[in-house]
């Protein structure tokens, strides 16, 4: 599709009037989706979609249109020209846009990820065979994803990758289940088999009578996956320049009252090690990293093109919500988690988080899947699901006892409209006095 996008772009740029600038963003996906329930196929299919966003700029005014592409140049050119005609009618009716901002310097780039994906039906055969006799529910999503940018100033960027995201849970009974994920770029039969074998071991523990915890404060270990759920909430306005300048960030106390997190907490947006394109929709190139919180102190924000223009900052992201968040590892080693926890709760997964008091970055949510009660360093039983309500200033601040040295790379399995290419690299966290309420 790279050549097709070049051809289409060239055609559209040729037809521009004097003084017009056109930004084009291409998005494409060729994906298989397989949904499993009771270790059998519930729904299976393929989605091929290609879209083009056109941003037409003239005399400091901007308007945009998005359309689906058919893959036939004559048809798509005509459709895009029709859209441009509609945009040209709109432009004179708009006032000048003081926050208009797009890359004027040319930075070309090409990234072609190699395709090492397995045949999806064979990968699924392996999964279903490995999970024979188990009650598995889950989803396979895999295939090619591509993004492109071109502008009439002469810049061209292309990013293509192939990946899979196999996400599943294996149920013992009721809501007692082990949640697992295998996502990446190359398939490994043995790795999958080890995962399922590990799940079978945990399932045995889930057969123990679940503990019913009373509301109160508990010593807990949050796996990287559980911490990721919390960071998804913090990322909802937490690190964006616009939300900081309009006092809506849940980290407002860090800015206004010099609140801080634990000295061992360092958070960054690690563009270089993420999987999103390095170019933005306005044509800017992202830096390798953006420091957000360093050793517990607020450091900086993510600024997209419009915010950067509005507040006089450098563009350092495509989205003001992190797409490649990293929390640096600490001193706690993976093998020492249970002994360090001693007696408390091993939280494998959290679920459906939301703010209960945004000003204090207080988050509520639920435990889910195989959360285990641990006594004297040994997991002894699952728990019935519990609601927590706790502030990030305590979880990653006063009550943080340690972060694991090892970090886990988590590839986002979400697929609203398109498959996501966001990711996070996070450690686990040992936390004291974690509050459960229901």
């Amino acid at each position: 599709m790279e050549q097709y996008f070049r051809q289409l772009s060239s055609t559209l740029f040729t037809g521009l009037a004097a003084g017009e600038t056109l930004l084009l963003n291409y998005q494409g996906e060729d994906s298989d989706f397989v949904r499993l329930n009771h270790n059998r196929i519930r729904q299976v299919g393929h989605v091929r979609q290609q879209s083009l966003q056109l941003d037409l700029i003239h005399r400091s005014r901007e308007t945009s249109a998005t359309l689906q592409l058919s893959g036939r140049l004559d048809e798509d050119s005509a459709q895009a020209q029709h859209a441009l005609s509609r945009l040209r009618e709109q432009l004179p009716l708009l006032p000048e846009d003081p926050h208009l901002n797009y890359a004027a310097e040319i930075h070309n780039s090409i990234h072609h990820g190699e395709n090492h994906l397995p045949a999806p039906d064979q990968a699924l055969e392996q999964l279903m065979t490995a999970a024979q006799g188990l009650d598995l529910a889950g989803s396979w999503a895999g295939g090619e994803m591509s993004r492109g940018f071109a502008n009439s100033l002469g810049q061209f960027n292309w990013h293509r990758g192939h990946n899979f995201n196999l996400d599943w849970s294996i149920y013992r009974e009721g809501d007692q289940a082990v949640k697992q994920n295998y996502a990446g770029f190359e398939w490994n039969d043995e790795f999958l088999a080890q995962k399922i074998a590990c799940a079978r071991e945990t399932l045995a523990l889930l057969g123990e009578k679940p503990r019913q915890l009373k509301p109160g404060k508990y010593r807990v270990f949050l796996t990287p996956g559980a911490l990721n759920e919390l960071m998804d909430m913090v990322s909802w306005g937490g690190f964006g320049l616009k939300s900081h300048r309009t006092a809506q960030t849940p980290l407002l106390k860090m800015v206004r009252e010099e609140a801080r997190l634990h000295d061992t907490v360092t958070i960054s947006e690690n563009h270089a090690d993420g999987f999103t394109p390095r170019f933005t929709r306005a044509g800017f190139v992202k830096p390798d990293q953006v420091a957000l919180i360093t050793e517990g102190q607020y450091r900086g924000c993510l600024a997209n093109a419009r915010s950067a223009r509005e507040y006089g900052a450098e563009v350092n992201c495509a989205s003001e919500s992190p797409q490649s968040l990293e929390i640096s590892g600490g001193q706690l080693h993976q093998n020492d988690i249970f002994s360090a926890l001693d007696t408390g709760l091993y939280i494998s997964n959290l679920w459906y988080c939301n703010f209960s008091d945004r000003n204090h970055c207080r988050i509520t949510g639920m435990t889910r899947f195989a959360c285990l009660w641990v006594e004297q360093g040994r997991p002894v039983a699952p728990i019935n699901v519990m609601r927590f309500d706790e502030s990030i200033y305590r979880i990653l601040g006063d009550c943080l006892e340690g972060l694991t040295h090892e970090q886990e790379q988590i590839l986002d399995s979400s697929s609203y409209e398109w498959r996501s290419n966001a990711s996070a690299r996070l450690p686990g966290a040992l936390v004291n006095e974690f509050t459960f309420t229901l």
Partner: protein
Amino acid sequence: MLTDWQSIIDDFKDVVPAVEFWSLRLVHDETEMLSVREDVVQPPNLAQSRGAHISFIDRGGMSYAATSALTREGLAAACEQAQRWLEASRRHGLIDATQVPRPERSGHYATEVATSWDNWSLRGKLELLQDINRSLRISPAIVDWQAHLARRRTDVRLVTSDGVHIDQQFHYIIPGFAAVANKGAQTQERSGGGWGSARQGGLEQLAGFNFPDGARQVAEEAIALVDAPECPVASADVLLMPTQMMLQIHESIGHPLELDRILGDERNYAGTSFVTADMFGSYRYGSDLLNVTFDPGLAPEMASYGFDDDGTPAERTHVIRDGVLLRPLGGVQSQARAGMNGVATARACDWNRPTIDRMANLNLEPGSSSLKELIGSIEYGVLMDTNRSWSIDDSRNKFQFGCELGRLIENGELKGLVRNPNYRGISATFWRNLAAVGDAGTFEVWGTPNCGKGEPNQMIHVGHASPACVFRDVEIFGGE
């Protein structure tokens, strides 16, 4: 009609392979969004989505393919993809595809529009949004303010190999405004004018959302909330306004009653349900005052339609009557699997996703109490207005919800504002504490365009209409 579908259907019929059953769902969706933030007109966007969803059933297998390439070659390629997956489905399918019911009735549906989007010029719409911005910016304490107005049009045609032909044309209007007030490290947001919701219809629907007239009040309340005391910590009565009732219905009635959750399809993502198949017909879901309907015919509500996306005709049906659970929310596939009656709620968010069970319009029927009577029935409690936080467990039982605005009620009278009003409870017992249901005068049509579910994920619009309601002995609390 946005697209002439006939040539695409003709091309499809030329390339479709010989299978026992096929269906072709064609969707053309257009959304035009206008917004003004902090007095600055944001770049308008016209988003168009157009594509085909092909479903095959053949020799015990069932599969789909979706494509934006609506050329003969594109449709042929999609057919090949669907065929490729049929064999895996035959060998490992969960469902006996031969037992999947097929649509039988053709028909059409169209939203009634009194005032078309095009009746107002672009300049006029932007001026209105700029006026709203001026109404919101009433003090330096307002640190962010914005207003938007969008329209969405969706044309759907469903054609099957059995000769069924269904046309549906939907028009939505999506307005809203919000103001953010701040003092030090205390920030409060208040929204209105339909923010976070939408209605079917044209610009005539704006008045029902108090758009634009409610803008100044929204800003005043945001400022007042900054200095308001925290919501008290207590076990007390709550009076939930329709802007919160919609979320309460959505999370703790709608989702638990979805049949695909009960059948386990959603266990890896959206979750399961505390409701089990044996409860229908006898389980006491709430007090005698609780009457809940699936109502696809309430014209301005977001998920009104004539047919679901599997082609099943939609009819108003009680799912809870006098507090007793009667029927799940599930389309024909789930009904066949469970051996239960359901309702026409097999829906897809767009051409690129398959149908799954969704709740569509799910409404709480009005009772007999005026708003004054509802307030007068409360000795000590809090009125809560406009949802802003939602969290519930994967069985849809233990919940915690928060609102933008609270107002204390003492001895049957409204008192001052309280900020950060939250409450928590358990679905299985909460609805049994429903003590009073507002009359038709308190009944409002709301909903959300952002209900997430499914693998691959789908974000879809649902409607919830409700009166204001009173619940006894609820755990309430504020912030900090």
